[in-house]
């Protein structure tokens, strides 16, 4: 079954909202960008 997390920007927003704990919200954008860098081997 297709995941709800694969489209952009909806999937991206869902990951930001559902995955990153509340107390990390102030740096969530940085965390996601760095995670994406690892996942894309960028």
């Amino acid at each position, binding site marked *: 079954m297709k995941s709800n997390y694969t489209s952009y920007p909806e999937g991206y927003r869902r990951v930001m909202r559902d995955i*990153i704990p509340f107390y990390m919200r102030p740096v969530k954008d940085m965390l996601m960008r760095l995670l994406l860098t690892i996942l894309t*081997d960028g």
Partner: protein
Amino acid sequence: MNSKELKAQRVQLFRDAENFRKTERIPHFANAVTWKIFDAGHTLDEAMTDFDLMEKCVLHFLDKYPIDAILDVGIRNQFNVTEAFGEGGYYYYNSEVIGIHDHAHCTVETLQEYMDDPVRYAWEKILPEKYGESWEKKDKAVWKKTFKEYIRYIMFILHMAKVMDRYGLPGLSPNNPMKGAVVPAVESLMSDLLGIQQLSVAMRRSPDLLDAFIERWEKERMEPIYEKIRASKGPDYKYCFDSSILMLAHNTMNKKQFERFYWPYLKKLLDTYAEKGLNIRIFTEGSILRFAEYFRDYPKGLLTFHLEQDDPFEFRQALPNVAIMGGMTTDLLSNGTPEECVAYAKRLCDELGRDGGFIFSENKMLSYRNDARSENMKAVCDFVSEYRI
């Protein structure tokens, strides 16, 4: 001397060497990466995803070899995060080998689209292509597992920074995976955006598209870095250097291409560092001697080139204003005797470091089992740490 004082003393030693000030001894920056794992009696596949074992391998190295700083404390080449996300990856490893497949996130035509929105591009192009059909199945559980591994990785980085402090080992430079490195446009083009093959072709067939991309990279990615450099208060003595840059793409260029795609932008970066009197290390992978003329006018102290394939004695003749890091070849560490290795280390220290301007290091990242023999590494580290000029 406690570890804090030892760290400060080592930083001073590096900074003196970079600035061509005579030092009592030559500092040793260990260019050691995954070789540490083999030396500790393990294989790559055992340690790559096991932080506890990786730390043991690092400690084994630090306890055995007297050095002044080290490139990696087990935080490079980490696979937990990508493996949690699923199969597929440009990096690969087995028990003996770690490597990377040449890959490209863009074509020369889609570079602007990447720049328009890198996150969107990653989401819509890179990740679907990398993970194929399984991308569509990356659900909440997969993302959660991956994020958990990512946080574990960050905690490991922070933990190993404390280990470095305990051993009085300074970091290379403020550039690190958490803060973001300074990457010239052509290096990003070569390492992942276009790859070696596409970049080589694009320099011949689509130079105008490359120009447009590089100009935009300069404006959007480099200008904020220039601003930070201009705002700096001078050298930061928490680190061996104020910045570390990697140069590899020049190896694929002739001089005309270097002058068009690389040098104007690198010059701007170096000039900005020079304005603030900072100390910069450039890991010149491959050979840089072909381009020596471009670096002749910089004052002593700005540049330290970590040489890979260039002969350090020839380099000193060509660029007496640039400090040298490196010199010790993995070829000798792997195939020579301890006596031969020490004799060569002594020659390096005597001929290159008598008046400052030399940091002892290995010419290649020690990565594979046969990059060095333990007894040679031990003999060289003991010698360099004890030798007084």
